[in-house]
């Protein structure tokens, strides 16, 4: 456990010193600021647009962080051969994978938190300057605490995407891993359609295949509660817990598979 912690701390340090990360987070924070201007242009529109765009920005920027840093941390070690000296230390390969993953999730948590704070600041500022009459037209207050459930599920989804990126990077090249991860991300959002496949075709083989894919591929749509939160529909704690549980189980399976592959791999 001590070893995993040390690897995680190192992975965290390594990633927060990455220029790509700075750039992405800076971009996100600027974007949040720009949302305020957009809000001004669409005056009369309510605060929903800003919440919606802000959450979307957090998700997209987080996705890029998860994919690029997620892939980089293991495959860069392999590609640049730093793994040779690292693995000659008294660590086991599974500790390396788990430590890296923990470090990445920590990186993500910090970044999602930074973006969330930026979003809340923008919303808080709006709430501060707008008149009471105008605010009365909002379904929910600007700096709505209920947004936390959306932000939290974005984070869980990103942790899952990171596990996917890590999984691919244990056996394929960084660029292929990126393509595969983005691919799976997109597929993951339309996964639910596979379930209703039988209403579209009547080949039973195709239906079984679709069913199998439905269960194997990650289902990412449930993590997206932006619309509900923005429109003031309640997202129950039970739903958040269930979805988190699904994410955690999927992450565990991916990490297990990553460890299995990584432990058998030749670093030549």
């Amino acid at each position: 456990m001590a070893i995993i912690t040390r690897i995680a701390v190192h992975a965290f340090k390594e990633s927060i010193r990455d220029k790509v990360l700075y750039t992405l987070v800076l971009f996100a924070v600027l974007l949040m600021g720009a949302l305020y201007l957009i809000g001004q242009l669409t005056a009369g529109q309510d605060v929903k647009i800003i919440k919606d765009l802000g959450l979307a920005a957090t998700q997209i920027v987080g996705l890029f962080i998860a994919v690029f840093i997620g892939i980089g941390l293991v495959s860069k070690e392999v590609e640049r051969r730093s793994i040779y000296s690292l693995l000659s230390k008294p660590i086991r390969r599974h500790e390396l994978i788990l430590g890296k993953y923990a470090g990445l999730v920590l990186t993500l948590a910090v970044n999602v938190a930074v973006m969330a704070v930026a979003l809340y600041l923008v919303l808080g500022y709006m709430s501060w300057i707008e008149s009471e009459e105008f605010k009365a037209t909002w379904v929910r207050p600007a700096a709505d605490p209920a947004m936390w459930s959306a932000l939290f599920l974005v984070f869980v989804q990103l942790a899952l995407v990171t596990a996917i990126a890590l999984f691919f990077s244990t056996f394929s090249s960084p660029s292929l891993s990126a393509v595969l991860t983005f691919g799976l991300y997109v597929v993951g959002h339309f996964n639910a359609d596979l379930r209703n496949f039988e209403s579209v075709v009547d080949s039973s083989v195709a239906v079984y295949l679709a069913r199998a894919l439905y269960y194997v591929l990650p289902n990412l749509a449930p993590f997206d509660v932006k619309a509900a939160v923005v429109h003031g529909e309640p997202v129950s704690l039970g739903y958040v817990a269930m979805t988190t549980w699904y994410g955690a189980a999927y992450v565990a399976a991916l990490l297990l598979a990553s460890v299995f592959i990584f432990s058998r791999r030749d670093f030549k």
Partner: protein
Amino acid sequence: MSTPAIKLDGLTKDYAVGFWRPRPYRALDQVSLEVASGEVLGYLGPNGAGKTTTLKLLMQLIYPTAGTAEILGRPAGDVGARRRLGYLPELPYFYDNLSAEELLVYFGGLFSLSAADARRRAATLLDRVGLGAARHQRLRRYSKGMLQRVGIAQALVNDPEVVFLDEPMSGLDPVGRRDTRELIRQLGAEGRTVFFSSHILSDAEALCDRVAIMAQGKLIATGRIADLAFEVLGWEVVVSGGSLDGMRALGFDEAAREVDGRLVIELTIDQPPERVLPELARQGAQVVALTPRHESLEDYFMRMVSQPGDAD
């Protein structure tokens, strides 16, 4: 006999080469070797001989096709053994965003050193490899030779009993080579087992108790340098009188040449002087000098490398 520090037994590694129809390519073929505790062993061979492959198998960076590798009596990859070894990879590379000191503190931590102990250790080691002044600089800005020195320092972070160095001199300037040679000598004097690969024979000659010579994946010779280097390869006979044509008639074509009006004939090991000299006398040649040709390590190495099959 006590357990050897390093033991290879029939170690074999096939790499799959070719994309569409992968075929196995034997990079290492049935290598068996023991290194006693406290011994400094030079693992010599030309490019592609299988030195790096052997070291990677010992570190379990790759898995053997057949055979076993043991360090301190434990199978390669054993965490307990790794606690007591150090490894310098070939052309080492680390993390761009860390300084040399941070790297050593991180690696020290993996050996459960406390941060303070690791920092102290880092300072000592970085001074020892001549990087004291650059220790806070990010590794991104290190030159190849500086990275090589960091590589040596990180291999010693845990005060290892067994040290594996893959081409420790590569990328170093003359001063660096001398320092590294001195360092290896010290490691040996401190009673550590050192296993280092090289194709620089003079380094091995000055440092090693024993060498193992590899060529094309096979171990072709092991032994004390003195025993290997001074093996008699043949003789050189200088004669006066006789003619080059006469020598050709005896079968010395290439082997005979004229130098300053005398004939110099190179005899191989299959042409012992006892047998050849009477024949020369019959040609009317008088022996002026007969010198055995001792093989230098370099010659030995080159010969073995060009004809690995002849060694068996």
